[in-house]
């Protein structure tokens, strides 16, 4: 190893390169591979067509999430196509000896929630999954990113993929966050500054006081959204917060293995003097509760602001198309906009801290009558925490129902679809046209903003409802 100062990203990336191809990608070794029912069946088919086998079945973990119902999970899945995909995941996992947490398994939940909460995700790892929000796991100081099905087949059959090394970006957020400002607001703020394509070609390291003070749940929310500004992934150097979170989790190292791992993990930080291709710095004091008004996650703003005017030039037509889809106009205030649906959940905001935040606002209030709310924990473990901590009682008292874990209305592959023309405040990650159902209109926001909308029935600044 050279003594040249290296970034966290360089350290993890370079230690996983099996071969460098001249004028080509790196052959990149994968430590952990997550699979789910939607993007894996064709990979297994392809592998079998070539007569290949799974090389390291113990490095792949399967969970069903994208396509699962969030009520009556004990009953057979109604949609035959969904049922077929779930069955294929189970059959393929069993056939090759891959750990499988299917529907009804107490460990089941959204892949990016169950990986960390069971200690499968560890610092310094390389982690991939056929899902772009795999970037979530970067919160632990891992290099984690989404891959396509051809690459799923590569990992299954050779534990490697072929990747050009991305460029490096560091994003610093300095200072302290104000009251009612959550990790979701931090990430929506950054994306609004950089745009939905502003980090394409880069791998991001998040640094600075705001991230140092953030919980693991919050760091996961931020890293999760890295893909929404085009970055392949984002990561945060592991620290005591990380180690405390991991220690004692089921699949985390123990005893001597823990000590050895910990010694290594403590080296995983960007050295003084290491350089990035691009660096951005923002002040925490400038961040407000955020909400999106358009049809990509870069179209976000502080909740008290007015929708900006279209920029002159090429993007004007696309901007206007976007506002037209949303039924909004330039200069509209977002506060007071009608809300029909509220969704809290997803790999972005489906962890216990998110439900605690939601409950802090709805406690002692009632759900607005016209609002349909979907409250969907990220996993059965989160669901149990919600019950154990008394959050379920608060929700029930306020007129909300708790559903069962899954990706749910984030991508609306199951029945949790927002009807055409209706407005949803959603804690998920994408506000694309039709993302939450054909014709649905999504406003992305934090669990606090979602809660404020759920009890008032309109877009509301959650700070007004906070003690």
């Amino acid at each position, binding site marked *: 190893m050279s003594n040249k100062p290296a970034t966290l990203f360089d350290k993890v990336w370079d230690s996983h390169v099996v071969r460098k191809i001249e004028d080509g990608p790196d052959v990149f070794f994968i430590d952990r591979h997550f699979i789910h029912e939607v993007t894996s069946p064709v990979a297994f088919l*392809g592998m079998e067509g070539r007569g290949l086998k799974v090389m390291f079945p113990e490095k792949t973990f399967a969970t069903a999430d994208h396509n699962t119902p969030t009520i009556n999970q004990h009953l057979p899945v109604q949609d035959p196509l969904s049922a077929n995909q779930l069955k294929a995941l189970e059959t393929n996992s069993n056939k090759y000896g891959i750990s499988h947490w299917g529907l009804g398994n107490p460990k089941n939940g959204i892949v990016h929630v169950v990986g960390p909460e069971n200690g499968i995700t560890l610092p310094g790892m390389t982690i991939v999954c056929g899902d772009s929000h795999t970037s979530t796991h970067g919160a632990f100081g891992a290099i984690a990113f989404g891959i396509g099905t051809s690459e799923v087949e590569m990992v299954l059959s050779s534990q490697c993929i072929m990747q050009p090394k991305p460029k490096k970006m560091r994003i610093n957020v300095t200072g302290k966050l104000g009251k009612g400002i959550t990790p979701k607001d931090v990430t929506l703020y950054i994306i609004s500054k950089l745009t*939905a394509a502003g980090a394409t070609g880069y791998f991001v390291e998040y640094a600075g006081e705001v991230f140092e003070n953030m919980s693991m749940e919050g760091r996961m929310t931020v890293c999760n959204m890295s893909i929404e500004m085009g970055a392949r992934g984002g990561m945060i150097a592991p620290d005591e917060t990380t180690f405390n979170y991991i220690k004692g989790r089921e699949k985390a190292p123990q005893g001597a293995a823990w000590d050895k791992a910990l010694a290594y993990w403590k080296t995983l930080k960007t050295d003084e003097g290491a350089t990035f291709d691009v660096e951005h710095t923002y002040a925490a004091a400038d961040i407000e509760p955020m909400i999106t008004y358009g049809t990509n996650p870069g179209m976000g703003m502080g909740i008290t602001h007015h929708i900006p005017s279209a920029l002159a030039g090429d993007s004007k037509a696309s901007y206007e198309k976007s506002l037209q889809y949303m039924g909004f106009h330039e200069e509209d205030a977002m506060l007071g906009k009608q809300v029909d649906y509220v969704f809290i959940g997803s790999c972005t905001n489906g962890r216990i801290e998110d439900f605690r935040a939601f409950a802090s606002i709805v406690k002692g209030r009632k759900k607005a009558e016209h609002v349909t709310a979907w409250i969907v924990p990220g996993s059965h473990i989160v669901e149990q925490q919600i019950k154990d901590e008394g959050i379920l009682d608060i929700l029930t008292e306020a007129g909300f129902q708790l559903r069962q874990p899954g990706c749910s209305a984030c991508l609306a592959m199951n029945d949790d679809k927002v009807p055409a023309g209706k407005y949803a405040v959603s804690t998920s990650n994408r506000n694309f046209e039709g993302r939450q159902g054909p014709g649905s209109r999504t406003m992305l926001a934090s669990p606090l903003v979602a809660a404020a909308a759920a009890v008032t029935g309109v877009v509301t600044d959650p700070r007004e409802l906070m003690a």
Partner: protein
Amino acid sequence: MAYDKFTILKSSAVPMPIENVDTDQIIPARFLKATERKGFGDNLFRDWRYETDGTPKKDFVLNNPIYSGKILVAGKNFGSGSSREHAAWAIYDYGFRCVVSSFFADIFKNNSLNIGILPVQVSPEFLDKIFTAIEADPKAEIEVNLATQTITITATGASESFAINGYKKHNMMNGFDDIDYLQAMKEDIKVFAEKSLY
């Protein structure tokens, strides 16, 4: 899955001057329920292409018979969003072999290259020239030459070079894929895996 070799493609093109075309527009999530790779082209751009009752939307470019061809030309940041390879499959299955834009999302670009679609990134100025050429003549021929890494508007002769790494270029010109490459180096991978901390 091996794919057809890509050398020179001469074709008219379908213009889609929209920015940030995301993978949920290319193929909505509700059409990802298959366990085999077939038929995705039917649902390419589903919600832009069809009314909810299945009637084609007249104003959408794929429903306009004056436009056709194996090249899709789109605004910047094409393919943002999900890692679903189904988006690339849908484009391939519909009959496109090349997508031209002034900017591509990373995962979409990788997925395309892995299944035999050539993503050609051009300057915003050249993208405008292509749109102008198609506006003047909906059947305007575009030539994409992978060997020379050039894209040319036949009628005007306007041309620009594009980037692709040597490894991927070789693969596409010969119809090879990464899985073949990785299988051939499995011994090295085994040795590497033995040293792995995880």
